[in-house]
């Protein structure tokens, strides 16, 4: 792990980078540091958002300036008493049934040199971990996808991906919980409700949960 690099994300947020890439140890460290920053209760800070290898701290620039937030974030990162991960990491396993009928399935098969059935078998063989949630409500970034299925994002993202689409990009997979723009390759569809704002826990998946995709005929 490298030293944290802090940069502004506009005038009301900053990004703390702790490394690069998708790696379970790095991801745990990001979540731990996000909790340490939240725990520091810095005045003017409204949100702390963990991603794979970085996190963002959102604040009100009318209440606190960049230099002050930066200093307080650095102090929180250095604090040795960063709390443990909340929730039992890996204790929840979700089984998500999928019809592998995605618009890009043939294209993925062609680009990776496998048959449709081989792509389906490889995608459904792995028990994935939720690395981050975000992008849109209820979207969970799952890893780590079989290297042989790794394809870059679409060069031009779709303006509308239908809800329930199961998709892949690079070493990641996930389910679009609602219609949204998206740059991932669509390989299947599920009818599971990934996000419901009226549920006690609106998002089905939380960081640290495990997920298995089960092919439907």
């Amino acid at each position, binding site marked *: 792990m490298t030293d944290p690099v802090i*940069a*502004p*994300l*506009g*005038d*009301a*947020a900053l*990004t703390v*980078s702790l490394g*690069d*890439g*998708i790696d379970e140890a790095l991801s745990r460290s990001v979540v731990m540091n*996000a909790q340490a920053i939240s725990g520091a209760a810095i005045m003017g800070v*409204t*949100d*702390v*958002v*963990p*991603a*794979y*290898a*970085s*996190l*963002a701290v*959102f604040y009100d*620039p*009318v209440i606190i*300036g*960049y230099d002050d937030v930066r200093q307080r974030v650095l102090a929180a990162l250095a604090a040795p008493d960063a709390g443990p991960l909340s929730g039992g990491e890996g204790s929840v396993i979700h089984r998500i049934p999928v019809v592998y009928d995605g618009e890009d399935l043939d294209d993925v098969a062609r680009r990776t040199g496998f048959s449709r059935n081989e792509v389906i078998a490889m995608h459904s063989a792995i028990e994935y971990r939720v690395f*981050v*949630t*975000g*992008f*849109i*409500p*209820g*979207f*969970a*970034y799952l890893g780590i996808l079989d290297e042989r299925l790794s394809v*870059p*994002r679409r*060069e*031009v*993202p779709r*303006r509308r991906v239908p809800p329930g689409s199961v998709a892949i*990009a*690079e070493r*990641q997979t996930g389910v679009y*919980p*609602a*219609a*949204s*723009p998206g*740059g991932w390759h669509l390989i299947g569809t599920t009818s599971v409700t990934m*996000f419901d*704002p*009226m549920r006690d826990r*609106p*998002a089905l998946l939380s960081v640290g949960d495990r997920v298995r995709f089960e092919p439907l005929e």
Partner: protein
Amino acid sequence: MIRVAKAPAYATIQDGGRRGFLANGVPRAGAMDQAALLSLNAMLGNDPRAAAIEWALTGGQLELAGSVVFAIGGADADVTLRDHPVEPYRAYRASAGDVLSVKAITRGRFLYVAFSGGVDSDLVMNSRSTYLPAGFGGVDGRRLKTGDTLSSGKPKARHLPQVSDSLPSEMRPPLDSDVIHYVPRDSAGTHQLSGQFSISPASDRTGFRLVGSVGTEGGSITSEPVCPGTIQLPPGGEPIVLMADAPTIGGYRILGAVTTADLGVLAQRMPGEVIRLEPVSVKSAQSQAVERAEVIERIREWALG
């Protein structure tokens, strides 16, 4: 009571947006032109987080039942009350049965119709903002339609606007500046965007695509947190400025983020209009944000007379 007598092609309830739920993947949402909404709320003596109707694309009509105080702002529009012209940033008192008619938006993109006491609707995750892609907030998470009825919150008597003058122009948020400032991610300047871009027709509440020549390479990154204002550069090479409904995480190269002060100005630009992107330091962007907040306070004092 406010009845939507003839819904426009686009109208939703929006407020300051959601705070505290970004880590759950819930976008901020809220008014595209926050400066316009904040100014109207200050004029009307409302809570800064009060909700209003965000209106775009076409005309329409609202029927106002019962005595209600309102003001319009944001985009310029041809609006009448009982067939008399309604000026922007001026408080009006309507009486039962009055029809507020928006004929057309004449300059800019998003018109705000704000009411004393704010537009009432259920709070979803602490906000009344409509988030259309996932269908929550506002009225059933959708656009307003003809026949909908809305209620405004109870204004506190001592907060009722005391003046019937228009807000002096120097206190109004700018509408037509074509210079948009942004804080670059890379202060060394190697991946900065400068110059002229036109707003692509593929622009909505989630993001505005920009068309123009980019002097730097786009690409994919390990997904990072993003927010309204973030400028992304996908491998395809067309920059995207994320707007109010920005996702919370994104996987395209990040070049910086448009300043809080200029994001509302950008939101008001129509497809085909040309803007100039100019880098600015985080310090100077923040002093501008503080200045804007001071203007909002001055509007509040002005409205109290």
